[in-house]
């Protein structure tokens, strides 16, 4: 009896579906036809297909920012959007060269303890407040106060005071010279904020940010999109763009699409114009499409396998080095990463100062036999099942990593490579925030992680012993390395500073708190309808010059 009732249900369902389809096409038809007709009539024929002012450029956003206060908690969403709304004192380009931005010029005192900036006199915030020395002092005092939540507190640590010398002059006073100061104030998190807006809005500033950038916040639909509109008064574009004035386009929109495949689908459907591509399969697909602009971005990033050096047996340098010998980085890149990257042979990303090709000669090579020999040296004996045992404990580990592709594939490949020498590996994939939390608490064996930073100070951030419990999640501590890091922080000469990092790396590569795996190639795909988008440093896409090509 029961099955007969299915038939009317299914029929009803089909009927409803058909009606829905009919309704949709019926709605679409009358609205779509007249508008396109009107547009065609209004526009001179020769303008068709060329770029015009106005229009919207939409970028896909993987993670929606919790807020757009530069001094609030950092995140990838903030990193993308903040540079559109806020300008910084100086601009650090992709080759790590400094350029004037809101500051016209700057001077460093003889002893390196005072840096004086001369500000542009003609800059105003979105709310009309003039951008002057007081605003800069306000910004940095607030930044240092709230800095505990920010990843860049270190770069400002030595500041004793920020002083407004006159209307357009600001002096930063330091306890001792600070080498990371310039790269820090070029970060989006050091964007200059409007003091009047902060006073008026208080906590709400994170939802209604006011800066001096080429775009200002227009609307924010939580979980859906953030739309910025052009700042018509803009006249202080950074070094990398030609158009120093207001953007040509009307608006920049950011659509929250957490999933990479959905982002690709939205891109192909023309719903978004800019996506970040981190999967080989997606890249292959986009290469076949006509008109898509694929551009490589500099993120100074490195993917590494970080040990919890506070936990046995990974506190043993021989064990760490043994595991490093078991890893075939080339195969890892070719297979798990689909060739979209280069094997890494040192701790510093090749685009950062302190990278030295000569160091690669010291890198641990792929040699499974050597790996086994080192394990034997470390006191392990191989059991009948091929596993390694010391004091009754089997050598095994869990690799903790995020769910972001291609981490799962990379971890799977590492698992297979380590299994080949008899080390069983489990994989635990959590979302990025949970990984960081777990790793900071030291509740893990090995983590597969990636850094991307605009300064070689990144090694200090992740491996300096004064950062244990915060960003040094390897719990690595070597006084000799710390001593070099302390020197790098004071060294203002770029060449000498880079050399210090080379020295630090020599020690790190002996200790192997990390196994450097590969440098990912980061690709951004820009739709053919967007022209002259400029790729800036650290994955920024500058839209100051961008125009939208209207296609008929």
């Amino acid at each position: 009896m029961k099955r007969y009732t299915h038939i009317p249900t299914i029929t009803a369902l089909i009927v409803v579906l058909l009606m829905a389809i009919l309704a949709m096409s019926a709605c679409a038809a009358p609205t779509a036809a007249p508008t396109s007709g009107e547009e065609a009539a209004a526009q001179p024929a020769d303008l068709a297909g060329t770029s015009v002012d106005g229009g919207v450029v939409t970028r896909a956003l993987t993670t929606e920012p919790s807020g757009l206060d530069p001094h609030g908690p950092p995140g990838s969403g903030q990193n993308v959007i903040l540079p559109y709304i806020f300008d910084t004192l100086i601009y650090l380009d992709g080759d790590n060269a400094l350029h004037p931005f809101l500051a016209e010029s700057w001077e460093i005192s003889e002893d390196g303890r005072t840096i004086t900036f001369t500000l542009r006199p003609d800059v105003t915030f979105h709310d009309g407040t003039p951008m002057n020395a007081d605003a800069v002092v306000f910004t940095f005092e607030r930044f240092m106060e709230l800095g505990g939540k920010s990843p860049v507190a270190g770069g400002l640590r030595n500041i004793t005071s920020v002083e407004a010398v006159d209307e357009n002059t600001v002096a930063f006073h330091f306890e001792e010279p600070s080498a990371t100061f310039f790269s820090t104030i070029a970060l989006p998190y050091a964007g200059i904020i409007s003091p009047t807006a902060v006073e008026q809005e208080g906590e709400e500033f994170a939802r209604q940010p006011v800066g001096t950038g080429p775009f200002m916040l227009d609307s924010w639909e939580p979980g859906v999109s953030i739309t910025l509109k052009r700042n018509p008064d803009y006249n202080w574009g950074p070094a990398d763009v030609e158009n120093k004035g207001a953007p040509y386009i009307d608006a920049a929109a950011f659509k929250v699409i957490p999933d990479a495949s959905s982002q690709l689908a939205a891109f192909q459907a023309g719903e978004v114009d800019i996506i970040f591509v981190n999967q080989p399969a997606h890249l292959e697909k986009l290469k076949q499409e006509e008109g898509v602009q694929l551009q490589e971005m500099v993120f100074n990033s490195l993917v590494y396998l970080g040990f919890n050096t506070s936990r046995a047996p990974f506190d043993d340098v021989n064990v760490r080095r043994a595991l490093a010998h078991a890893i075939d980085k080339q195969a890892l890149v070719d297979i798990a990463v689909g060739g979209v990257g280069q094997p890494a042979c040192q701790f510093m990303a090749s685009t950062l100062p302190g990278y030295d090709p000569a160091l690669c000669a010291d890198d641990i090579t792929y040699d499974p036999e050597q790996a086994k020999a080192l394990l034997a040296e470390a006191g392990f004996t191989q059991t009948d099942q091929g596993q390694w045992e010391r004091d009754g404990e089997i050598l095994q580990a869990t690799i903790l990593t995020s769910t972001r592709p291609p981490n799962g594939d990379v971890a799977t490949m590492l698992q297979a490579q380590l299994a080949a020498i008899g080390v069983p590996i489990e994989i635990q994939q959590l979302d990025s925030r949970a990984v960081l939390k777990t790793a900071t608490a030291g509740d893990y064996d090995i983590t597969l992680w990636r850094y991307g930073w605009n300064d070689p100070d990144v090694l200090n951030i992740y491996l300096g012993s004064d950062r244990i419990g915060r960003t040094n999640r390897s719990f690595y501590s070597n006084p000799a390395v710390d001593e070099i890091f302390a020197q790098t922080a004071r060294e203002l000469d770029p060449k000498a500073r880079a050399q210090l990092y080379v020295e630090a790396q020599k020690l790190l590569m002996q200790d192997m708190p990390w196994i450097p795996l590969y440098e990912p190639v980061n690709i951004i795909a820009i739709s053919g309808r967007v022209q002259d988008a400029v790729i800036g440093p650290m994955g920024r896409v500058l839209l100051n010059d961008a125009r939208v090509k209207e296609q008929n």
Partner: protein
Amino acid sequence: MNVPTAFPLRRGRRAMARPRSAARPRRRTRRTPSLWIGAFLVGALFLAALLAPMLAPTPPDLMQPELRLQPPSLEHPFGTDIFGRDMLSRVLYGARLAVQVSIATVTLAAIPGIALGLLAGFHHGWTDQVLARIMDVWMAFPGLLLAVVLVARLGPSLSTAILALGVIGAPTFFRLTRSSALSGSTLLYIEAARSVGVSNRRTIVRHLLPNMLSPLIVLVTLNLGATLLAVSGLSFIGLGAQPPQPEWGALLAAGRDYMDTAWWLALAPGLAITLSVIGFNLLGDGLRDALGRG
């Protein structure tokens, strides 16, 4: 539920336990092809699970990088993945996981659900009231969402997925058993059993429970399918199986990114999930028709 018409004491104990005659179900099955299709699909699933080591051409985790991303061929009927692992082997071992996980989850849900349901339905009164209200509150939570929260709390793995889905599945079994027990315990043969001094436990286990087996079998069958789908769903969003486990949902998630370039990666696990769930549902529906309304 059929009501035994004869005075129970005059019939043997077997007849008391199974008051339905055997002839009627058989006649019904002939009119329900869904039962046979379902039985075939579910049988195939169990066979694949059982014989995976024999049927699979390679171990499921064997990487052969030189054979990566091969389209389906005679050698690799379901193709190979980005590591050159044979997809047929992975899907077969995935069947193993699917069967194990589904059975474990349903067992975890059914045992406390049925036990508490019998208790509540048999004893009536405040035991029933308290248990039923707790279960009502429990059921008010959206099931899969609760599972997601639990897994997020406990860390993703297949065992936490089993635990979470088992916990949220219990009330379904409770409700069915309780209502059956409520109506069943007022029947004459139960009263008779009580009147001759059969202990409560024995009454429940020997007389009450067997009489509600057919609706329970239907519910278990339908639940196996639903669980399989839920586990795959959790694995699909990364909250279930961890690599390299060839769980179908995880395989499907991995294959999704290659839909245009390597369609076979998503097709095989997708079909496996679909056919298995359809199989359980058809079998469940068929059994319901064959065994009479529950």
